[in-house]
């Protein structure tokens, strides 16, 4: 298991040894997104595009963006909502490639809104006035909830979002510290197996196949190294297609390329990856964000996204 370490800190594929490859430094969130890049590396999709990837796992939007700007990272994964906020505030970064996406059908979506068995919450509209655990405020989860409530009824302003790490949500739901939790895999699976009830698969419910993640690069990099950016995009596209074609081998690889143990890897709902950016999805998210004040100006897709 070469290159593996506990902090999933750095991972350099064997191909780094080969000559003639462009070395790039990429970071992505620990867990499934990180597994995606490493799967692509394992399958040689990056090397095929002339890239040798030094992979780091990241600590989320607030730290990867400074790293992109100071040149420490070439490319970093983040979620589209945080990325759009950063771009809206004038940070010189651009979305260059799609990251994870919601499942096309709800049963294969990796997000889940969980409540206790006895909870009165049955639909999105029931969430009015309730406390929902999310892993980060001003991020994907609250935007998605806002979108769902706008569509299905309910008063978004009356919802209280409580920020906590995913693993802490399950006990918090069970003990009644929050009324519902907005989880992703593998915690959704864990929660369901522990008897929590799934109200909805929020990502897919808002829009099947909605793009959640995205790869960012500094505007300067996009400008000065278009070929590298294009090569990275192609590698992402090839990896996404590879996984879409044969999700089970990706699943089989999970215990090696992520921290999931084999039992869990066999059960989780897999994320989806799409070959291209989802302009419609991003624009609909942006509309919601503008409405609830997360964006200050209307989203300009052409300025924010490359390709």
């Amino acid at each position: 298991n070469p290159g593996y370490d506990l902090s999933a800190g750095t991972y350099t594929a064997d191909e780094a040894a080969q000559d003639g490859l462009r070395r790039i430094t990429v970071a992505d969130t620990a867990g499934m997104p990180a597994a995606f890049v490493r799967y692509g590396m394992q399958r040689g999709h990056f090397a095929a595009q002339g890239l040798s990837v030094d992979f780091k796992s990241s600590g989320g939007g607030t730290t990867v963006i400074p790293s992109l700007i100071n040149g420490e990272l070439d490319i970093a994964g983040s979620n589209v909502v945080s990325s759009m906020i950063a771009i809206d505030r004038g940070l010189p970064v651009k979305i260059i490639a799609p990251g994870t996406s919601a499942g096309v059908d709800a049963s294969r979506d990796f997000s889940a809104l969980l409540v206790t068995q006895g909870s009165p919450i049955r639909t999105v509209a029931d969430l009015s006035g309730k406390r929902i655990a999310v892993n980060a405020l001003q991020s994907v989860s609250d935007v998605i909830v806002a979108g769902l409530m706008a569509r299905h009824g309910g008063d978004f302003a009356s919802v209280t979002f409580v920020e906590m790490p995913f693993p802490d949500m399950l006990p918090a739901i069970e003990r009644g510290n929050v009324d519902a939790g907005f989880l992703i895999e593998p915690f959704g699976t864990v929660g369901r197996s522990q008897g929590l009830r799934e109200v909805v698969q929020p990502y897919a419910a808002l829009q099947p196949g909605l793009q959640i993640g995205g790869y960012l690069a500094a505007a300067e990099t996009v400008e000065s190294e278009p070929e590298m950016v294009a090569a990275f995009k192609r590698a992402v596209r090839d990896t996404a297609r590879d996984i879409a074609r044969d999700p089970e081998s990706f699943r089989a690889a999970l215990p090696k390329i992520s921290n999931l143990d084999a039992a869990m890897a066999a059960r989780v709902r897999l994320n989806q990856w799409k070959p291209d950016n989802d302009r419609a999805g991003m624009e609909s998210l942006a509309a919601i964000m503008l409405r609830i004040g997360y964006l200050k100006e209307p989203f300009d897709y052409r300025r924010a996204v490359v390709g």
Partner: protein
Amino acid sequence: MKDGRVIGRRAGLFLLQFVVPVALVAGFGLWSERADDFFFPPLSRIAADFADTWLFERVGTDLVPSLARMLAGYAISVVCGVALGVLFGMSRILRTATDPVIQFLRALPAPAMIPFAMLLFGTGDASKVFIVVLGTMWPILLNTLDGVRGVEEQQLDMARSFRVPATARLFHITLPAASPRIFAGMRTSLGIGIILMVVSEMVASRNGIGYFVLQSQRSFEISAMWGGVILLGLIGLALSWVFVRVENRVLRWHRGARGLLPEPATASGRTGLPRPTTQEVTRA
């Protein structure tokens, strides 16, 4: 004439403390206006943001709850830290038995302990107070423990020979003798307390300065974040100002015994206890 000089010197000392801060602020102000760096916005913008936010819109919603949680945690720490420090300082067996556990607990990072705190105390204020306690108790405990162990033997022997009971020895000898160390620990903890107040508000919060700073960071409102940081600094200044005043009163004897008071009580011993001086004093 001599009085005039003394007053002049006092005024000089008083003004002196503003020289460096003013210079730094001016320097940063000038630099930041020109720097055009996203992460270091112009000082004028930070100031405007600060005024918008903290005068006095969010005082009630964020500042007060934060301070209340922090001070509650700090108070618990002082009480527990001193009590445990005295206990462990006086009993070799207890000290030895608890040492590994304490050293272990001390090294646990607060952010990693938040899940555990939430398990124990839920997501409310109690878990945040717990996080503050978990971080601020150790400097007080360690200093008290070392202070208690460093008490001059002769003083304890004296009290023992006069058959002063153990509790009285504790309150009249051990604690006063250890008080310079206890204050050192409390001073250290004060800063840590503010830091942990912020850390504890990173998770499961709906208000507080830490929450505000974190959300500003999240949404890349950098000048708002700086405003929050400045507020934290100001809180630190204010609390330490109060702290030093209390300390000067309580540790006056120590300053005097250490020859650090320029104005010891006068020889005539006129009235009551000597008046506490209002400035921290060190020997030039």
